[in-house]
């Protein structure tokens, strides 16, 4: 559970810069993630959304700037302190990242077995409660290979809440899912956030789903924050770029055409 219960943002990112070799992913990004809310980070593919989650989780080191989670700068604390902090946050990977050699039950039990010394009977009850929350108590004996993509994400979600974290980060939770599964995942994110008093961060480019469940939105592109606010603020943003992204328009500040010489000149050049 969270150490600080005040109005301080649970995640405070300031002046974040990060580069993969010569390619700059973030170039001075400031983000505040409010406590107890669902915040979405949106942006085009390849804009570094997953990288941002890994920076928040301390799996990557920024070239400059700070990432403060629940009052602790993830890049300045010791490895032990970072691991203690990670027990209070979860990252739901796009693939689910379930352990393929363990059953659904053992996958959910994994963090409990690693970090607690609970008697087997209590551990069993806890795991079943987590699986019940995601509707998969009956699938406890299945292996990950026997699950559909949506079920795998729900199991990963049950595992993510096993240690009762203060915050869950979702990496593209809706990608590649059928409409029913998307509805189930949306409902679970909202329900878990509200009933467990969590903070949720969703990284995605599914505008429609995000506007339905999130309280706050950030839009990033080209290494910068292009805009942020409530879904309503974003829909009526003055930024042409944000409006194009929210409405999914094919042309606008992000051009349809890849930069090219003049069309007529190009055609005549071959004549």
């Amino acid at each position, binding site marked *: 559970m969270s150490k600080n219960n005040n109005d301080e943002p649970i995640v405070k990112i300031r002046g974040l810069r990060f580069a993969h070799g010569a390619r700059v992913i973030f170039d001075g990004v400031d983000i505040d993630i409010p406590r107890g809310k669902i915040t979405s980070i949106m942006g085009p593919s390849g804009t570094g959304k997953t990288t941002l989650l890994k920076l928040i989780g301390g799996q990557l080191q920024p070239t400059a700037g700070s990432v403060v989670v629940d009052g602790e700068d993830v890049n300045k604390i010791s490895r032990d302190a970072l691991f203690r902090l*990670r027990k209070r946050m979860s990252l739901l*990977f796009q693939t689910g990242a*379930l352990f*393929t050699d363990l059953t659904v039950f053992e996958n959910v039990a*994994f963090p409990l077995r690693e*970090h607690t010394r609970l008697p087997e009977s209590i551990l069993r009850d806890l795991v079943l409660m987590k699986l019940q929350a995601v509707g998969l108590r009956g699938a406890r004996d299945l292996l990950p290979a026997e699950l559909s993509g949506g079920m795998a994400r729900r199991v990963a979600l049950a595992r993510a809440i096993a240690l009762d974290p203060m915050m869950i980060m979702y990496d593209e939770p809706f990608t590649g899912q059928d409409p029913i599964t998307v509805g189930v995942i949306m409902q679970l994110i909202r329900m878990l956030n509200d009933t467990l008093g969590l903070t949720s961060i969703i990284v995605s480019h599914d505008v429609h789903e995000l506007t339905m469940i999130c309280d706050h939105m950030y839009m990033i592109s080209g290494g910068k924050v292009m805009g942020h606010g409530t879904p309503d603020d974003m829909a009526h943003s003055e930024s042409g770029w944000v409006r194009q992204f929210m409405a999914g328009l094919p042309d606008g500040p992000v051009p349809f055409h890849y930069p090219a010489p003049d069309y007529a000149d190009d055609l005549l050049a071959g004549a």
Partner: protein
Amino acid sequence: MMGWLQRLGSTSLSVFERLGRGNLFLLRVLAALPSLVARPGLVIAQLYSVGVLSMMLIVISGLNVGMVLGLQGYNTLVDFGSEESLGQLVALSLVRELGPVVAALLFAGRAGSALTAEIGLMKATEQLSGMEMMAVDPLKRVIAPRFVAGIISMPLLAAMFSAVGVLGGFFVGVGLLGVDSGAFWSQMQSKVDLYDDILNGVIKSVVFGCVAAWIAVFEGYDAVPNTEGVSRATTRTVVHTAFAVLGLDFILTALMFGDE
């Protein structure tokens, strides 16, 4: 000419960079070993998949190598009328050289490649990242138990290879070719020294086990996390282990038996 020099420079740099990374990785794995004292179950589970599941291959290969040694050895020795020395020839060849070396090569092909592929795929499917985010250190939970299991398994598999090989030589030499059974065993008993031969063979197999296990877990952990990356890492494990084992074997043989 410049292009060739450039390629040589960049290849050398990348080789040294990987060597450095591999050594740092080994230090981190060694630092993670004490955590296994509290959880021996992790090592035991790996001993099964790394060691026990390799046994069949080792036994069959050892038997065949022993039988071939018996046959070839007999054909040579009989020309000099010293076929009674067959037991000594088979045992020394196996205990000093073939046991540790062939077992290590088979180990790399069977268990080493499996370890690399398993760890590489865990990386590619974000299971290692997932573990880190659950505040579980993959070096302690995944890598260290496999590394230790490799080191423990190798000498045992090499010993098994040699023992079964001697039996193979016995079946062919005594059973088929008519060498005297008493001479076969007594020659072996009198000429094979516990320290000079058996202990040196065990030392070799321990060294090969360390190297094979290190290469296997490092290649998996360092693999590019995609299908091609894991495939290349698996190949590298087998090739690098073979080179390392054969190279080290020459050095160790020169040190152990060079002054005989």
